[in-house]
């Protein structure tokens, strides 16, 4: 392992951080790495990070982190330019990886949405759908979460520096809950929980606080939604409630799982 005080490495890999439609929370996670930030800055040249620095340097970049979804005509152009400048492109967070909460509009009438928020919709340029980066360009790794987990971000950057694959398991939140020693909120308290179908990474935060997981990391590598839905119904949720529960920060990804899980298809289940 290299130490943060390596004496003047010849050329440090260059990092670029970019943003499309998003809340800035995932890139803020990098600034929230208080203990690691100065070490990361010693290992990587932070070449482009407008939120933190006023001297953005042009590409090419060795590692690019992209936050946010593609949601305007200009984004389509921009993401192709970013990709062309990036040796490795990693999407950070639910917006870049699944379209984000703003993808709720993909299932609604955008014209109506514009009119709800803006009195003069003609001034606003927007695409009908908010889409993940992978819908437009090749992505080397997708980091999940709304927001991403700080530890996982440091792992992705470390893995990149070491030239290995990030150790980010795609199992469900249930595994994290067991590891943390939580009592199952569904089994013990009848609290509806998306943990069984949700990608781990947060450390099972919600169940730790006595709340059902709300799926902000998107679907796990394997899911069995048809088995979970009846449990949620047993615990008092209507079909509409379940719909809303699944349709939040990863609406596009869970909708895809729901479509897979329709009776007659069986590919939703598989070995871990």
């Amino acid at each position: 392992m290299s130490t943060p005080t390596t004496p003047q490495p010849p050329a440090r890999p260059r990092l670029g951080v970019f943003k499309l439609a998003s809340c800035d929370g995932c890139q803020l996670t990098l600034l929230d790495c208080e203990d690691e930030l100065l070490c990361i800055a010693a290992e990587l040249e932070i070449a482009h990070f407008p939120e933190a620095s006023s001297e953005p340097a042009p590409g090419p970049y060795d590692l690019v982190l992209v936050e946010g979804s593609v949601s305007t005509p200009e984004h389509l152009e921009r993401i192709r330019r970013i990709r062309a400048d990036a040796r490795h492109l990693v999407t950070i967070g639910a917006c870049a990886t699944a379209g984000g909460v703003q993808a709720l509009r993909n299932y609604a009438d955008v014209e109506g949405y514009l009119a709800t928020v803006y009195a003069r919709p003609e001034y606003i340029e927007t695409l009908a759908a908010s889409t993940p980066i992978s819908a437009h360009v090749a992505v080397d790794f997708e980091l999940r979460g709304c927001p991403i987990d700080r530890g996982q971000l440091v792992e992705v950057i470390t893995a990149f520096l070491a030239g290995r694959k990030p150790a980010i398991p795609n199992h469900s939140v249930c595994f994290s809950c067991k590891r943390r020693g939580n009592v199952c909120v569904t089994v013990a308290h009848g609290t509806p929980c998306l943990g069984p179908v949700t990608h781990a990474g947060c450390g099972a935060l919600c169940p730790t606080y006595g709340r059902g997981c709300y799926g902000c990391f998107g679907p796990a590598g394997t899911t069995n939604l048809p088995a979970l839905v009846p449990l949620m119904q047993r615990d008092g949720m209507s079909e509409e409630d379940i719909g809303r529960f699944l349709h939040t920060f990863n609406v596009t990804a869970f909708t895809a799982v729901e479509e897979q899980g329709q009776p007659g298809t069986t590919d939703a289940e598989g070995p871990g």
Partner: protein
Amino acid sequence: MSDPTPRAQELRIPSLARVEGETALYLRIHHGTVVEARLKIYEPPRFFEAFLRGRAHTEPPDLTSRICGICPVAYQMSACRAIEDACGVVVDGQLAALRRLLYCGEWIESQTLHIHMLHAPDFLGEDDVIGLSRSHLEHVKRGLRLKQTGNAVVELLGGRAIHPVNVRIGGFHRAPTRAELRPLEERLRTALDDAWDTVRWVAGFEFPDAECEADLLALAEPGTYAIESGVPTVLPYDAALPPYSFPLRDFTDHVAEEQVSHSTALHSRLDGRRHLTGALARWAVSGHLLSPLALQAAREAGLGDPPSQAGAGRGEVCRNPYRSILVRAVEVLYAVQEALRIISEYERPAHPYAEVPARAATGHGATEAPRGLLYHRYALDGRGRVTDARIVPPTAQNQGAIEEDLRRLVQAGLDRGEGSETELTRLCERAVRNHDPCISCSAHFLELDIERTR
């Protein structure tokens, strides 16, 4: 040049940095006079107010926190208050105290981020915090430590620093035990020293002369420095007009949002006049309610004494946007002290939340996000479905005042002969950063577009 017809010169600076969100700036300069300054917010629209319709009344705190990763607690708190107001529920006692504690954590974290990582480099001639860490390492380390303590408060109470999971309408999913809060106490004591050192550090910066010509709008709460509640209170710029306040339910009658062609953010005006929310407004309206220690820090920082009552009485209103960093540093110190007080007085409530049964009604909620007053309004139907949502973020309210600051500062720069693109860009970026804008909220940063005609 002797060309008599108006001739346009365009200058572009790709993206204004160290600001949260995407913004460009358009300046029109005619014969050396700034005739127009427009902040072009090109943050893409995300349609929160639209997709909130049809959601359950329990959902806005989690959904709206995603408007802003920098101040998610502010969104959660304003949303909770608005829905509780609609449902006729008042959350008080230890649950209210826990909310204030959570909010103090966000104030410490967010204000410290702005002071050390975004704003301080402007005063010390650095491009960013990394540059600053080479020239002022101990200050950067202190900033990171202080920020981490703010995050630790939010993480303990909320589960994580960004988009906390433990907040719900009526209170929390789980209330911490006294023993769980104890380790925070130790960190906060160190933070109190760090906050003092921060005040002394920023007090040594050089502040250019400037004055923000705008009414000041902040929440006021009897007996305490308003953070998570209060009544909108206005200190007009025009000295002939007295300070006044209005009920929160009348907020949109006073603060009218209008859409302008150059921005995806909606512009607001307060009773037809330009206004400013945030640190300077809070200092003017509620400064006298700060703790004696925070007031002592303010005096040492050179802020003097705040007005002895909301916007009136003896004492000084600070209208210099550069000096807002002083108020933020004092507020961090206050927030640390408040957090310590709340923890020392904490008794774990019997229930982590109050029940909030839905009813058909409209509710209003406003709290002081680090960058200013954040208003939410929700209309609910009898089943608790949101039928209408309205969110007025601080940066949209401040946009007019920021543009006026830009116009005045650029004019002053031009008058001093600082007309180069580099000089103007630096000046503009500083003018905007003075207000800690959160562009994601208002609808990210600075592309300077200057049109000169002669």
